[in-house]
């Protein structure tokens, strides 16, 4: 436990000390925040749409068994094979077994956070199957040998200079000109033949449509369709919470998802995949598999976290999070970073290992405000804090400190005396209205200033006013 505490703090220290990381984070999240704000002014129906989106997801979750069975029935009727996985390991094993069964040497992948969650990249690598990430950002992550740091822009921790260096070193025909256009072109050349020669394609799903058994992917690059059309086998992995009753419901959710994620009204490519190649089709896979994954979702249902199952993975919460924007995504240590990650990671990895995440939050409520399905993220984070306390996972220093606080705060005279002394001492260290350094405040003032407190406490001023009346 103590080690986990250290490692989160160590990771945060490292992120804060990284000179290029903050620049990279600001460039992407700043753009995302601005574009979303513009999209909202052009969509005055957003509040009503968000309330509807929330109700659609709540309706699905309340009837999840019904929709799972309807989806399975229709998917099978479309020619798909449906697999069920209780855990991340089970899901990865199913996918790897299907790849082996297909005699796959090369597998192309469409970015999917569920794929990351179940450890699929690692499982494929372990099985000795060549894995080609086709989303540009995932391609950059793969070349860099690290992990995604954002759920929509997985390589946002890389500056253009770093990407350029990697492409020049690792692409067969790299760019000559130092522009982002030329780098994108280099990746286009590099991946083109791999799309067409892969044996198996693996994608996720943004939505599962119960009434047809179709799955839906959204991309801007067009890599989903280029990935899933040429190979003989297409495997979809999806969380069981991705269901919607019909295409109409998916469309209502898509309007929320895309605006919240990138500020666009719709992605360049929205594709519904239904079963394998049909008789007469010019192209498409012979086999179509869908792996439905639980991995903690039914536990969330049971343990009072069902609002989190509304999440459509847009990333707006992290783009607007003051903590994420200082530290980036790697610090969170799990598959999902930012506020939604701080809620989900304790589900997947256990609270003992991730108890710092619910604390890495200022409770400013911004995440809930921008969430397109109104998930009460601060409340869920507070729930984890509460549980961490009850289960005795908080370190002795925290328990001791809070014990002192409780002792003082429940004795008004002592509390007033303490605060009256404290603000006077703090003012001794203030310069120009700010405390920039003070013994005992180093951890705070290393990265930010503390506003100088008022001359007198609230109670002192209040008492004076009472006397005056």
């Amino acid at each position, binding site marked *: 436990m103590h080690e986990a505490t250290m490692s989160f703090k160590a990771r945060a220290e490292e992120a804060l000390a990284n000179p290029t990381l903050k620049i990279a984070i600001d460039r*992407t999240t*700043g*753009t995302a925040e601005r574009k979303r704000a513009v999209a909202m002014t052009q969509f005055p129906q957003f509040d*009503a749409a968000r309330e509807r989106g929330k109700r659609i997801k709540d*309706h699905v979750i309340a*009837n999840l*068994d*019904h929709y799972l069975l309807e989806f399975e029935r229709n998917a099978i009727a479309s020619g798909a094979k449906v697999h*069920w*996985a*209780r855990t991340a390991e089970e899901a990865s094993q199913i996918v790897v077994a299907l790849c082996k069964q297909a005699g796959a040497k090369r597998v192309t992948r469409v970015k999917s956070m569920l794929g990351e969650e179940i450890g699929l990249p690692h499982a494929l690598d372990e099985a000795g199957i060549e894995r080609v990430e*086709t989303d*540009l950002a995932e391609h950059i992550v793969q070349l860099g040998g690290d992990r995604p740091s954002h759920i929509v*822009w997985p390589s*946002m921790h890389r500056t*253009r200079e770093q*990407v350029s260096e990697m492409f020049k070193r690792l692409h067969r025909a790299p760019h000559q000109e130092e522009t*982002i256009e030329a*780098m*994108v*072109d280099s990746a*286009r050349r590099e991946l*083109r*033949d791999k*799309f067409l020669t892969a044996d198996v394609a693996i994608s996720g799903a943004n939505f599962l449509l119960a009434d047809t058994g*179709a799955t839906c992917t959204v991309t*801007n*690059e*067009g*890599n989903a*369709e*280029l990935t899933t*059309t*040429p190979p003989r086998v297409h495997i979809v992995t999806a969380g*069981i919470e991705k269901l919607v009753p*019909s*295409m109409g*419901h998916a*469309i*209502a959710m898509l*309007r929320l998802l895309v605006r919240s994620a*990138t500020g*666009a*009204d*719709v992605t*360049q*490519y929205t*594709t519904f*995949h*239904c079963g394998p*190649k049909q008789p*007469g*089709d*010019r*192209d*498409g896979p012979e086999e179509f598999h869908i792996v439905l994954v*639980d991995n903690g979702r*039914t536990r969330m*249902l*049971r343990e009072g976290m069902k609002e989190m199952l509304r999440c459509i993975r847009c990333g707006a919460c992290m783009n607007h999070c003051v903590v994420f924007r200082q530290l980036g995504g790697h610090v969170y240590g799990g598959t999902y970073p930012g506020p939604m990650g701080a809620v989900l990671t304790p589900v997947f990895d256990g609270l003992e290992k991730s108890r710092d995440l619910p604390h890495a939050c200022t409770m400013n409520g911004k995440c809930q405000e921008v969430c397109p399905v109104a998930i009460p993220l601060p409340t869920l984070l507070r729930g984890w804090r509460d549980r961490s306390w009850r289960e005795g996972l908080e370190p002795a220093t925290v328990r001791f400190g809070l014990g002192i606080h409780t002792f003082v705060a429940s004795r008004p005279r002592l509390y007033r005396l303490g605060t009256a002394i404290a603000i006077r001492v703090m003012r001794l260290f203030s310069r120009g209205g700010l405390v920039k350094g003070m013994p005992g405040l180093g951890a705070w003032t290393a990265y930010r200033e503390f506003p100088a407190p008022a001359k007198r406490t609230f109670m002192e001023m209040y008492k004076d006013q009472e006397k005056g009346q």
Partner: protein
Amino acid sequence: MSARETILDAVRSGLGNTAVDPAAVRRDADALLQDLPSIRPALLADGLVDAFIARVTSPKVAATAECIASASELPAAVGRYLEAFGLPALVALQPAAPLQALDWSGFELHDRVAPDETIAIGVARWGIAETGSLVFHSGADTPILANFLPLHHLVMVRADTILPFLDDYAAATAGQRPPRNVNIVTGASGTTDIEGSLVLGAHGPRFLHVVIVGTPDSSE
């Protein structure tokens, strides 16, 4: 117990084992799609074709569009496009009857799209005015790769197949057996994966040109 049974059991116990009445679930689901105008954006213009063109050519979609009176004018429109870009008259033509029926003399045609295809001509089944999108269904006359491999994608869409909203597409196809792929294409391929800056032509087409065939709104 199988994974399937374990998961379904866990869902049911998590929900408190309530018995599901499929008819009631259906009613609730339908009710969630009532009053659509309150949860979707308004169109950019009154006429469907005008609204569609306004979206297609808006900075967000960044495609180009032109109108022709009849499909027979398509080869000439393609010729003008090729000339503007200085491209040879070597095009991949989607093997669809409305395209193949046209007079393509002066063009060298093929129907298999190459991995480095410069230009492909296709026909969309529907246009969507809400988003400026084109809708394709995979099938015997619609290879999916033809929408994604070329650098330039020229798409014909009939004015009378332009639907107001995405929901109207869902309604138009409800109850039919879905094709393997429904592609809703909105603008050219793009990426913002390097420092959030938008670059077109990521893996799919860098240029999308939409040719609308039929009566424009003004003369309706």
